[in-house]
């Protein structure tokens, strides 16, 4: 079996307001294997970013861990202390963010920002670090890298900045790269460049990628396995081809159907009625039930996450009977 590099168990993240807890990520469990690309898709606000940030201990102020545990290699994070995170950040897990425009510090040079990462984790002289930075810039295909080293982020285009972010993230050879919507802010032609680059680098470095996106097209291009999230929960997990060919959860189905297809022509797109429920006012039971065309009485109870023989999982009462094993 392939090596497991990350194990997330019943992760709960939320806000505490005068003792009242609101879960933003509500018991998410998944594994990540060496060398694979795991996609996480879902609508805006469903908790994708919070999930990924919680894997790095970067939750924004006010948002806290409320339960669960994370295993990275043999490190076990249970009480999520600040110090522990610092050991893995950058070295084991690296991250790139959605906004290439604002993820680089505007007042430091590109070179310094890469070197900072290197120097922090490896006992190196400044000169060596600089050489490494240059190397990284070359690796991510930045033209005239020696000049770019001394330039500031504002002097680069969005695509180039995202490459720099990738360079920073990869400069210490992390085992896991979390990419939170790395191309959403970019143009299609640039997106194509970046995705291509990430694929190539993954092959070279044999790392695992968690790719967060809301673009099913990107998932189709990039991922091996996909997790679909809805309102803070995983509703479906399966291999990518399986997901597109044979989606199981009604939400996944609706999502795929509402996508305009460049190769097909429909007069109307099918759409999922209603809106995503809000935290603090979550429906009891299945969170998708209000919008689900196949909802029935049982949906008033929280459905189990059913693991199917193909290895895929789905959280819906419709699949209860086929269950092989019920977790939870």
């Amino acid at each position: 079996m392939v090596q497991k590099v990350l194990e997330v168990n019943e992760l709960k993240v939320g806000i505490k307001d005068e003792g009242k807890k609101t879960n933003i990520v509500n018991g998410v469990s998944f594994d990540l294997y060496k060398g694979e690309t795991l996609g996480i898709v879902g609508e805006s606000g469903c908790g994708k970013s919070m999930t990924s940030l919680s894997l790095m201990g970067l939750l924004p102020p006010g948002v806290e861990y409320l339960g669960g545990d994370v295993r990275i290699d043999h490190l076990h994070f249970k009480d999520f202390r600040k110090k522990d995170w610092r050991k893995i950040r950058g070295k084991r897990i690296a991250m790139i963010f959605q906004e290439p425009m604002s993820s680089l510090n505007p007042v430091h040079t590109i070179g310094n920002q890469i070197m900072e990462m290197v120097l922090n984790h490896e006992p190196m002289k400044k000169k060596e670090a600089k050489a490494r930075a240059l190397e990284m810039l070359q690796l991510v295909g930045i033209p005239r890298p020696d000049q770019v080293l001394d330039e500031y982020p504002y002097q680069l285009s969005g695509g180039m900045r995202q490459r720099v972010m990738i360079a920073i993230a990869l400069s210490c050879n992390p085992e896991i790269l979390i990419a939170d919507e790395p191309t959403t802010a970019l143009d299609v032609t640039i997106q194509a460049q970046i995705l291509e680059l990430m694929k190539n680098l993954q092959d070279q470095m044999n790392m695992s990628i968690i790719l967060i996106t809301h673009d099913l097209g990107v998932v189709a291009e990039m991922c091996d396995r996909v997790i679909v999230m809805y309102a803070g929960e995983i509703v479906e997990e399966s291999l990518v081809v399986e997901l597109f060919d044979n989606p199981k959860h009604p939400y996944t189905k609706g999502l795929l159907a509402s996508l305009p297809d460049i190769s097909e022509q429909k007069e109307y797109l099918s759409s999922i009625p209603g809106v995503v429920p809000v935290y603090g006012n979550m429906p009891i039971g299945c969170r998708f039930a209000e919008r689900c065309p196949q909802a029935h009485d049982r949906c008033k109870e929280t459905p189990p996450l059913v693991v199917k023989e193909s290895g895929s999982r789905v959280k819906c009462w419709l699949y209860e009977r086929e269950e092989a094993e019920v977790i939870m």
Partner: protein
Amino acid sequence: MTSVGLEKAVPVNPPRRPHLKKLWRFIKKNPVGFIGLILVALSVSCALFAPFITPFDPSKASLSSRLAPPSWADPKGESAFLLGADQVGRDLLSRIIYGARISLMVGIFGVLIAMVIGTVLGLISGYFGKWLDDIIMRVADIQLAFPFILFAIVIMSVLGTGIWKIIIILGLTYWVGFARLIRGQVISLKEQEYIQAAKAIGGTNFNIIRKHILPNVLSSILVLGTMYIAEFILLEASLTFLGLGVDPTIPSWGGMLADSRNYITSAWWTAVFPGVAIMITVLGFNLLGDWLRDKLDPNMKV
């Protein structure tokens, strides 16, 4: 940013709580704002209810009780005044209570004048830009570079003296702060799509400013206003210190403080209690302003 907005989409219906509990929640969440509120409320109620709560007539001078110490600190036990008496034998407590009127008046009306002038000019400058902006900003520069005290003397010799003149002086000096703040905000607001949209649906400039721009700069105007109120109260004191204050019979904190500066060692109460009154109010308004800013607009720059 999208998700944050969405979060508010459905109104949450909290179970009806008793008011006290709500208050407690507010206090726990905003201790700073609460303290500010209490302090401001204290001085505002002094100002409003002065005639009902003062133990003595604040302008009733009596040379025999000149500089009588606070009753609790009087070794002879003769003093009838809780906080002592001032240089002409008036009850300090009563004067401090009445002083709230003048100090708040200076603060509030001064700020109103500055606010109105600054807002109008700032809106014009920011919205129309070009030469209007240039002119208004140069005038602002000139105003800034012109020494405040000279300005005060000039205004006073042209208009005469009195509390309203001080208010006018403060208003005419401090409009610049409002104008600059608002100009900056308008310039960035102008780029907002809803302003473009307002144009696209045929709005006239006046309507766009009135309906779309003004309401959106209001919160920062308010915040700056509270801070200026605090500053104006202190400025009134400084003006009195420099001999440009109000009629000394009118009880104003600044005046009391400035006039008692030589008594700090011999009759400390004349200098300390008005100082405390100023501190409480100024601190109150500053805390209130701080809280308002955090509440209304976390990105506001001073």
